[in-house]
């Protein structure tokens, strides 16, 4: 009966309307109005945030060349970080700027042979995969020849003056050593056959880390990111077509310890300048050899260990080498990552690995760097557990002296490490 059904007087049509869509899929109706977002041109904080967001989206969507030019477009005052610096305790500051943790000793891949004495023991030689005893003896003879060429046979009419010794004598020695070793090891390492050996290349990187309150001027009181630029020029470097394998997984760097320095960078002392922001690995973008293998750096006369001892700061020698490695390798790996399209808001998905050898002609130090993160600006570093890693060795002598046309005290461990570094391949 009508009264028993308890239906309202006016029969509602919506009763059937609701039943129409019960058994169908939830139809996606397009929104009738555009989404409500903050304004783009208003003088407000949300408008500024939206502008930044739009710029970030624009950069992410652009191809790599345009990405680089958009990131380095605007010139502002920035701190110029010199890898070879006179500042004391520079390695702690550089570790903070680049979020790098230092691990003493090289990774397990490179066994540190002590190599005492002239005669190589058979056990050492067989440890390098791919190089047997004869090849090692050949390399050893080659190194002896290079040392003798520079220190015994070479007679220059003009003796090098004060602060010229490293540039006149050791730079050509290192160049010859690198060339000969690279060409010899290329027989055993096919990666080096398609590699590129550069001499005196320019390696630049530009990044932002931290922020500061502007103390004076028409923008006083506002927050500004702190910008850095490295312009480095190693003695020589090897660039390859394939990425080197990682030394340890990215997750292992979560527990690494990075020193945090709360003071402003200009107290280091570090100076600000404004000029072109460059990101460069040593070759332009279309070059196929876009990944880095090994860099070779020469310690100039100003930071030579004898001079440091004379100035009564012998502990600064190792600190100088470490800071040089941190800055140079971070610059190179960061530029490699930038060439692949990774930047602050798009963090690297695989680690970038490079190696470096820093020497003053007699003492050799070996460093391995793994770039796990390039997201160092304030917004992207807030929840970033990844850290970059640097492994470093103590400096060891390659040879004692050259007497009567003979090299005395040639260290096989150093030659072994050099060969292992050059043999590194995926």
């Amino acid at each position, binding site marked *: 009966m009508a009264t028993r059904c308890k239906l309202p007087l006016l029969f509602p049509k919506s009763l059937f309307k609701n039943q129409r869509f019960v058994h169908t899929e939830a139809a996606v109706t397009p929104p009738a109005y555009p989404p409500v977002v903050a304004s783009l041109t208003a003088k407000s904080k949300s408008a500024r945030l939206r502008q930044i967001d739009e710029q970030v989206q624009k950069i992410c969507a652009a191809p790599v060349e345009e990405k680089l030019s958009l990131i380095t477009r605007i010139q502002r005052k920035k701190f110029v970080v010199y890898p070879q610096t006179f500042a004391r*305790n520079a390695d702690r500051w550089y570790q903070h700027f680049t979020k790098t943790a230092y691990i003493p000793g090289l990774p397990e891949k490179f066994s540190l042979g002590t190599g005492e004495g002239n005669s190589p023991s058979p056990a050492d030689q067989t440890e390098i995969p791919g190089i047997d005893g004869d090849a090692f003896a050949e390399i050893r003879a080659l190194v002896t020849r290079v040392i003798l060429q520079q220190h015994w046979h070479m007679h220059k009419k003009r003796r090098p003056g004060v602060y010229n010794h490293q540039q006149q004598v050791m730079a050509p020695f290192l160049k010859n050593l690198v060339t000969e070793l690279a060409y010899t090891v290329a027989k055993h390492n096919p990666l080096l056959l398609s590699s590129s050996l550069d001499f005196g290349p320019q390696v630049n990187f530009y990044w932002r880390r931290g922020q500061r309150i502007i103390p004076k001027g028409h923008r006083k009181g506002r927050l500004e990111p702190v910008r850095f630029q490295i312009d480095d020029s190693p003695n020589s470097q090897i660039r390859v077509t394939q990425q080197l394998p990682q030394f340890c997984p990215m997750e292992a760097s979560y527990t690494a310890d990075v020193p945090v*320095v709360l*003071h402003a960078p200009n*107290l280091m002392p570090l100076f600000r300048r404004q000029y072109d922001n460059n990101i460069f690995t040593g070759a332009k973008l279309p070059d196929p050899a876009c990944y880095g293998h090994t860099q070779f750096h020469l310690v100039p006369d100003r930071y030579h260990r004898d001079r440091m001892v004379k100035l009564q700061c012998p502990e600064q020698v190792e600190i100088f080498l470490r800071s040089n490695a941190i800055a140079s390798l971070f610059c190179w790996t960061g530029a490699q990552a930038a060439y692949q399209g990774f930047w602050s808001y798009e963090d690297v998905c695989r680690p970038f690995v490079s190696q470096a050898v820093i020497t003053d002609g007699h003492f050799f130090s070996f460093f391995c760097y793994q770039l796990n993160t390039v997201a160092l600006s304030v917004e992207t570093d807030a929840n970033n557990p990844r850290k970059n890693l640097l492994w470093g060795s103590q400096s060891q002598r390659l040879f004692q002296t050259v007497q009567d046309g003979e090299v005395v005290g040639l260290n096989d461990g150093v030659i072994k490490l050099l060969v292992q570094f050059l043999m590194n391949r995926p």
Partner: protein
Amino acid sequence: MTMKNIFFPIYQLGNPQLRIFRPNWFLTLVRPGKEQPPDTVQFRVPMEMTKYDVKNYLEKIYNVPVGVVRTRIQFGSNKKRNHLNQKVKKPDYKVAYVQLAQGQTFTFPDLFPDKTQAPTEGSMEEMQNKFMEDEKQRQKLDPRRGGVTEWFGL
């Protein structure tokens, strides 16, 4: 050589090493205006001193292991004018930032700490303080009146 009335002779190759005994220079350790790293100490030094003079001074006289010294000259303003509208110059001074060697650190001590010591028992100060407190208590109104004055009422 004493410091009196001598001007530094220009060094030429072959000259003996210039030595100064009993220097007439005095350094002032100051609190840094801006926060400095823990190994940096800030001094005000006489204008005639150089970085090497500061380093030798601290090392030889005070046995302080000095790493590196950086100096700058602070210009004292000449803008203020006195009651005769003459410009009054504040003197210039040289500031030296000394970084200590051998991992040593230095923090400038707190020279004027707050003194909150209670007066000793049975002394005059304590009795006077107590008397003053009692007087103040007597002047206050009855708290049950809730701040209302005694002008009205009985």
